[in-house]
């Protein structure tokens, strides 16, 4: 399938990045300071420091694999391609919920769109509305709430990780804090006070829902296969839901980087906007 570049508009699926943008749990956020000013040095210059898991960013396999591929080693051809944008909100998925292959197969039946081998899979939970650095959402719908964003977003189990490999998904993007369920990350320990709420929602124990052996399964089980992901996607994502479109992920070419901030965009023909 060809795409007519001249007729494409670019939509921004990225969130803002500034000092107010929260990093992931136990990751320091950005510092930005002016170190030169026009009045004195005839040019203005900033200095930044940050961890890399802040705002819209791409994880490289190196994040979890000793000697794994770094950001600069990921070929551009992999980073641009056809993506299915799956809206999970249509299935009523919300706080603490677990999604799985059944939701994506239902989505294929409902939309008539087939998620093809080699496709990128963009998962829309709707939680980007809660991100403090959301900018594109209608202000009336924007509901900054970082606790809900980081702690309560839905996530998958091992069944989904297995399905992603089986369906030969190239890579993933999520509009929430992590590709893993929050309680399948370090958040399980640092917000242990909310585990009872999570268990009550499901009527099952956490060890039954998310066994220890599956800890961070979306990272540990998928990165060895090169199936990486963007976290904190968002921006204008609501404009492209339930479609198969061309997307591009553009991290700066960070040699040795275990992750990098990236610009995530959709290339959409003008007459399909």
């Amino acid at each position: 399938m060809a795409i007519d570049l001249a007729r494409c508009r670019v939509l921004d699926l990225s969130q803002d990045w500034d000092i107010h943008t929260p990093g992931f749990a136990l990751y320091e956020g950005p510092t930005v300071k002016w170190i030169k000013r026009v009045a004195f040095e005839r040019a203005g210059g900033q200095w930044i420091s940050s961890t890399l898991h802040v705002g819209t960013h791409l994880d490289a396999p190196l994040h979890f694999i000793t000697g794994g591929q770094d950001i600069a080693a990921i070929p551009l051809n992999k980073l641009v391609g056809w993506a299915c944008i799956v809206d999970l909100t249509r299935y009523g998925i919300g706080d603490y919920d677990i999604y799985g292959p059944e939701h994506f197969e239902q989505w294929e039946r409902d939309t008539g769109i087939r998620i093809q081998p080699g496709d990128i899979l963009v998962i829309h939970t709707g939680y980007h509305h809660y991100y403090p650095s959301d900018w594109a959402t209608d202000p009336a719908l924007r509901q900054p709430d970082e606790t809900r964003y980081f702690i309560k977003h839905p996530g998958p189990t091992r069944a989904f990780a297995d399905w992603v490999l089986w369906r030969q998904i190239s890579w993933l993007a999520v509009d929430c804090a992590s590709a893993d369920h929050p309680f399948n990350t370090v958040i399980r320990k640092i917000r242990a006070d909310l585990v009872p709420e999570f268990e009550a929602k499901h009527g099952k124990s956490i060890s039954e829902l998310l066994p220890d052996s599956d800890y961070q399964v979306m990272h540990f089980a998928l990165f060895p296969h090169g199936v990486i992901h963007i976290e904190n996607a968002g921006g204008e994502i609501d404009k492209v839901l339930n479609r198969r479109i061309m997307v591009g992920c553009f991290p700066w070419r960070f040699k040795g980087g275990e992750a990098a901030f990236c610009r995530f965009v959709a290339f959409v023909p003008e007459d399909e906007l």
Partner: protein
Amino acid sequence: MGSVKLYDLSQPLNQEVSFWPFYPPFEVKYIKRKAEHGVNAQYIMTSNHMGTHLDAPRHFITNGKTIDQIPLEWLYGPGVIVDLSDVLDELDIFTPEMIEQRVEVRKGDILFIHTGWHRYAQFGETPDEEKYLLRHPGPHPSIVDWLIAKKIKIWGVDMVSTDHPMNLPIGRFLGRGGLEQWKRVRAICERKFGEKLTELFPEEHYQLTHNALFPHDCIHVENLGGEISRRELHNRRLTLGVFPWLFKGGEAAFCRVVAFVEES
């Protein structure tokens, strides 16, 4: 990407890459390791003017646009990469006429200039930091009015700056009272341009392509590289994309730069 071929026009960036004079370097360190924390995580500290990066107007203009305020429509679209590499030597000058002799530049195009200089960058074919930083070519001052007339918003070079070294600290004061690099650069230019030197580089043209163009929202990418030397990309129409991360308030940002070529 369907029948579209992608070319990466970005230079790799890490702690080894040379940094702009008077600006701090790119630093990176691990703050979490797999064995202790179950994960590898890094922390970076850097100025924005390293590697392949986009300058926003805010770099020179009080209250100018910042990276997040640059519309994506400016950053992706039709353009050209003009090849001037065969006619440019150390500290040479290129003119709009030289560009137009080789390729048609249309209004609003994204314009990249291939000087060949990226081969001297840290990760280029023949790294030579002094040559890359101190003795790169630069534009004739007429490029300013020409870019404005062409309504160009985004242009870029495979060099450390869009300005000629004589309009930068490099040819004016770098190393003054110390290594005196500016004197050596100036001496080469005096030999090269003779009496025309002050006419070509008047005092008030300090950082000309920054100071004169940023008020018009005509901004640029510096340190292009990667596959920009590929001949099939030169002097023809193609689609170009410049993708900085969405740095709200950023006076510049690292970016990934890509040429999209439809295969026939």
